[in-house]
């Protein structure tokens, strides 16, 4: 410790903090062993990590079978499956996991849209890229149309591909992205409707929201695939995927509506009055003043709903759509690959986690970017 020096009044300089506050040691002291309880939990956490991590790594990596094109590397001496991950299983089934039973010769159609989507998304996410508005516009309007024509085919000389051949991660993305993109605007409208002064509009919105929130997604999907056709006149039939899409979208827009409503309620009355006093009409006031603030405030809730929706797409498996997870299950029930379902699930977990974590990270980035110090 330096000796105490006397300074004249008003001349006291900023001194560096003591060593115990800075550096690795300072951090550890403050965060790991600051009290007996803290020390106890630190030790407990270390013990748990020791218990869990090594066997996990062993199963996933060190004892796992890595190379090979068939199931022989994944068998133990007795011919049963090995007690670790069997990655050749994933490799052998990669195409079905990614694209379902989509005809192999037509896969380029999907891949092209992936590239388009990836480029546009990167352009949106990387701050330095100009013309952001145009990329966003492309993603919102022409892109879904292009996708529709490419995926379905039947026109422009493309082969028609029935939707029951769609599957794997491709189908999961189709359902999730459609649901995500459609549920936000519908949710916003429902939220506005629920706060409306007009009793009929309000009642309709409340009824809609409470109805969809009150039923499980599985029952929505069952209704859409089993009961809905019964109500339709003979010969009228909607595509099963389309019905599932509508079901998922309406279901999540009800949740979205409540999230957005939470944001709307947090906007002080003064913001409305400030906008009104300037002569902004209702639509402009909502568009420029209220919604940007309300949506910004509920980014965590919105992304939460998106992530929930993304994972809920696995439920379409119950109505016979072969999404990513259903495809993995189908793959592991193949006689050649019995017993490797766990590996499939580990792979599924990894893929779902990557998507969800990506969304979460992007939302946090957005929050920081949109923070304007209030």
């Amino acid at each position: 410790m330096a000796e105490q020096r006397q300074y004249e009044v008003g001349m006291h300089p900023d001194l560096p903090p003591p060593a115990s506050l800075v550096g690795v040691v300072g951090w550890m002291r403050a965060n790991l062993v600051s009290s007996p309880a803290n020390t106890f939990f630190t030790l407990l956490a270390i013990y748990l990590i020791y218990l869990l991590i090594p066997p996990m790594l062993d199963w996933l990596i060190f004892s796992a079978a890595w190379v090979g094109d068939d199931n022989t590397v994944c068998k133990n001496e007795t011919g049963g499956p090995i007690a670790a991950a069997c990655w050749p299983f994933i490799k052998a089934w990669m195409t079905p996991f990614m694209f379902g039973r989509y005809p192999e010769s037509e896969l380029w159609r999907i891949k092209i849209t992936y590239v388009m989507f990836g480029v546009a998304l990167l352009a949106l996410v990387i701050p330095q890229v100009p013309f952001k508005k145009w990329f966003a516009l492309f993603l919102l309007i022409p892109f879904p149309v292009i996708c529709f024509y490419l995926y379905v085919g039947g026109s422009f000389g493309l082969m028609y591909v029935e939707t029951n051949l769609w599957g794997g991660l491709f189908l999961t993305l189709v359902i999730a992205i459609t649901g995500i993109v459609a549920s936000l605007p519908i949710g916003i409208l429902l939220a506005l409707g629920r706060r409306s002064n007009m009793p009929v509009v309000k009642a309709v919105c409340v009824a809609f929201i409470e109805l969809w929130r009150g039923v499980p997604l599985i029952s929505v999907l069952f209704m859409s695939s089993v009961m809905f056709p019964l109500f339709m006149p003979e010969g009228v039939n909607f595509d099963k995927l389309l019905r599932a899409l509508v079901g998922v979208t309406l279901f999540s827009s009800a949740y979205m509506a409540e999230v957005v409503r939470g944001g709307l309620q947090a906007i002080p009355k003064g913001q409305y009055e400030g906008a009104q006093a300037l002569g902004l009409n209702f639509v402009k006031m909502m568009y420029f003043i209220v919604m940007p603030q309300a949506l910004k405030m509920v980014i965590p809730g919105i992304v939460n709903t998106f992530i929930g929706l993304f994972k809920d797409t696995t439920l379409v498996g119950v109505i016979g759509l072969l999404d990513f997870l259903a495809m993995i299950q189908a793959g592991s029930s193949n006689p050649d690959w019995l017993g490797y379902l766990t590996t499939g699930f580990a792979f599924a977990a990894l893929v779902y986690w990557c998507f969800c974590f990506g969304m979460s990270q992007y939302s946090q980035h957005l929050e920081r970017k949109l923070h304007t110090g209030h």
Partner: protein
Amino acid sequence: MSDSNASATDLQAPTKEMKVGEEVVIELNGMHKWYGSFHVLKDINLKVHHGERIVVCGPSGSGKSTMIRCINRLEEHQQGQIIVNGIELSNDLKKIDEIRREVGMCFQHFNLFPHLSIMENLVLAPMWVRNIPRGEAEETAMKYLTRVKIPEQALKFPGQLSGGQQQRVAIARSLCMSPKIMLFDEPTSALDPEMIKEVLDVMIELAEEGMTMICVTHEMGFAKTVANRVIFMDGGEIIEENEPNQFFDNPQHERTQLFLSQILAH
């Protein structure tokens, strides 16, 4: 109170000579308002001429804010007439928007839009209500920001400014719409004492340029310097209405006397 009085009394030279036009720009005829069954405004009659500067004072809960908020329809009145700039207020949304375009308003809590920069706050309404191109709107915005003496803050966000600065931005924002009338709803009540003067200075300048103003305020110094007329309200009624010298030196009504004695006592 004493602090703010001190800051208000050493404002600039009296500006009483400013001319008042003949034209009536705001007219309230037998206006009543209720909140549920509570009768907040009772038979309000008021004529404001072009270029007039009116200060409204009175104890809290007397209906003064409600009255001026009725003028641009932030509050609805139930009986009587409000005519602003020749347009009678009714439920017609078009007319309401038309009136709001011509009537600027400053609030106690500024009501700036925190998600937009100061510049965006200023150009939003001119661009989207008056359809002025961005370049021109920004030019106007800079002009008014310079006038309220904070052009250097244009790219900051409201949250980064002091209260006094925010209120000056709010005034500039209203002025960007080139309003014919300005309403002030206790513009200095939420400010620290040392910031009150900077806001009042801007308001005085505005008055000197002949802006028609109605100002709800407790700044009696401001009232003395700037107002043509002071209106005293209590219990939802206009109790007394006089030119400032008469009003302060010789209040007629006993409730006015009581009010003045309370706020000028210290």
